[in-house]
């Protein structure tokens, strides 16, 4: 029996609110982004974290990847507290937990070619110079791109290709845990499916543990084995993905599901009668007076 690869134990995160003036007057308050959250992620789990803006899902991602420290509580990797792992040298944590960001154009340096960006990451991992070119080709192949992409700059790539580079850069570290914060929400729908299928293939091929942060319940349903529903900094419901989405217990989960666009099936207004083309309805004067 092995323990969880990633754990949050009673984690809270708050940020100071208000300006300097408020603080001088002693009126400072804090915005609580995460409120006493505990979560265990088992090795190989693909966990979807859903919620609306302000639910704390991106704050949670930042804590898990070590970009921020919790205000209270502890984040553990394989049972070891982050505060200890980070104290002397942040490297090991960073290598084992990697992140893919939402906006691939701002996550990549616009002046560096794809090969240079990946090469620098490989250098950080201690890959000798002689092996880097072949590893870059391997990484590109892994994310479904050809070696001709190497010399290109980020702006010469499509959004989907850029997001694949972001993914390749994260995978260069050979991480155990991958955290993807809304990785497809900036992409066109026809490209979303490509990236989701790629994530799905990579997690199973590489045995990755994935935290997939999204507001899209249908994508989470496709990709994830577990789901965590967050609201206002707390977890309101979690469990196996299909169980939760098919039989939501919490009213907030139910509201999220009800709000997903469902095409014709979700229509609340009747379909128009086709015969004589839609006749315009009489205009009402909304103001009463003309």
């Amino acid at each position, binding site marked *: 029996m092995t323990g969880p690869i990633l754990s949050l134990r009673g984690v809270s995160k708050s940020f100071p609110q208000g300006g300097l003036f408020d603080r001088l007057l002693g009126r400072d308050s804090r915005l609580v982004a995460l409120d006493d959250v505990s979560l265990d992620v088992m090795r190989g789990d693909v966990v979807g974290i859903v919620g609306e803006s302000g639910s704390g899902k991106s704050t949670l991602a930042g804590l898990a990847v070590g970009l921020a420290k919790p205000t209270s509580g502890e984040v553990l990797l394989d049972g070891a507290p982050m505060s200890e792992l980070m104290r002397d040298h942040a490297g090991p944590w960073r290598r084992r937990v990697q992140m893919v960001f939402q906006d691939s154009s701002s996550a990549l340096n616009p002046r560096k070619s794809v090969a240079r960006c990946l090469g620098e990451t490989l250098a950080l991992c201690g890959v000798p110079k002689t092996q880097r070119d072949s590893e870059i080709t391997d990484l590109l192949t892994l994310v479904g791109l050809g070696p001709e992409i190497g010399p290109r700059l980020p702006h010469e790539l499509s959004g*989907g290709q850029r997001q694949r580079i972001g993914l390749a850069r994260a995978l260069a570290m050979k991480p155990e845990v991958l955290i993807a914060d809304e990785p497809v929400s900036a992409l*066109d729908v026809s490209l979303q*499916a*490509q990236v989701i*299928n790629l994530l799905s293939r990579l997690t199973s091929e590489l045995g990755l543990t994935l935290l997939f942060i999204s507001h899209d319940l249908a994508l989470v349903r496709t990709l994830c084995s577990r789901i965590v529903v967050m609201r206002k900094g707390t977890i309101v419901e979690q469990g196996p993905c299909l169980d939760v989405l098919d039989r939501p217990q919490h009213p907030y989960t139910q509201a999220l599901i009800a*709000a997903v666009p*469902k095409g*014709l099936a979700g229509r609340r207004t009747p*379909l128009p009668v086709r015969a004589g083309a839609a006749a315009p309805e009489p205009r009402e004067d*909304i103001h009463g007076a003309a």
Partner: protein
Amino acid sequence: MSPALLSVEGLRVGFRSADGGMIEAVRGVDFSVAPGEAVGIVGESGSGKSLSMLAVMRLLGAPARATGGRVLFDGEDLLAADEKRMRALRGRDIAMVFQDPQSSLNPALTIGRQITDVVRAHRGVSSAEARRIAAEALERVGIREAGRRLASYPHEFSGGMRQRALIAMAIACRPRLLIADEPTTALDVTVQAQIVDLIAELRRELGLAVVFISHNLQLVAEIVDRVVVMYGGKVVEDGPVEAIERAPRHPYTGLLKACVPSLSGPVGPLTAIEGAPPRLGRLPAGCPFSPRCPDAIESCASEMPALIAEAGHRTACWRPR
């Protein structure tokens, strides 16, 4: 058949490129909107959907400009109208709501001032009457204590409330056509559902015609009567919403529907559309979707199929499904 309220005929929009050439982004688009009808325009980035509607509103900024075609609103060609005439029509007869409610509002002016400015410009009423109209419009879009909220600034509103305020501004002068360009993309999904319901409700009650631009076919299908699908600056399919949803004829429409997963049905790999959306200026001579189309044959890339109508359903495809 009632005459169209808006009729877009052969519309072309181009950009002057750095080397002096012209890059076409909208390449001969035809569609119409009947009075009171709700039409969805669906397409991915670069499809030309937003540019087409900006051209209709005559809001294209340099270097983009309309290079051909006609835009008939109630029989009048808007592309030929002078700026004074456009200013009279915009906001009064045709109103537009944009994607980002934050940047569509002036942060330094109260919500009330911004709505009353529009009302006074178009309706020539007293300021007291304009405030009354503004308060009614705010109330109509579901903002509680509307009278008091007129004094609020945009930053005091949530994203959903800002979009409601913009819709209030749009309907305050009782337009006949409301153009909504991705009005919910920046909003949370629960707020999105409320805004979509609000637009459907206003349309029903005020007899508004609506053009709803979105990349989300499922969302659009919840409220429109007809869907126009655009790709690479062209209309590739246009038909009643039931037909588009249940039996799309263009392979792109079918794939667009299939690549978005639903909350029911089996879980498995998603249907993906290979390749990337086309880049302007690098479109094939034929069907713009042919490089990514699983059904494409050789001639698809060389010759553009015409938009052929069959029982009110138009498709531009050599091999319709």
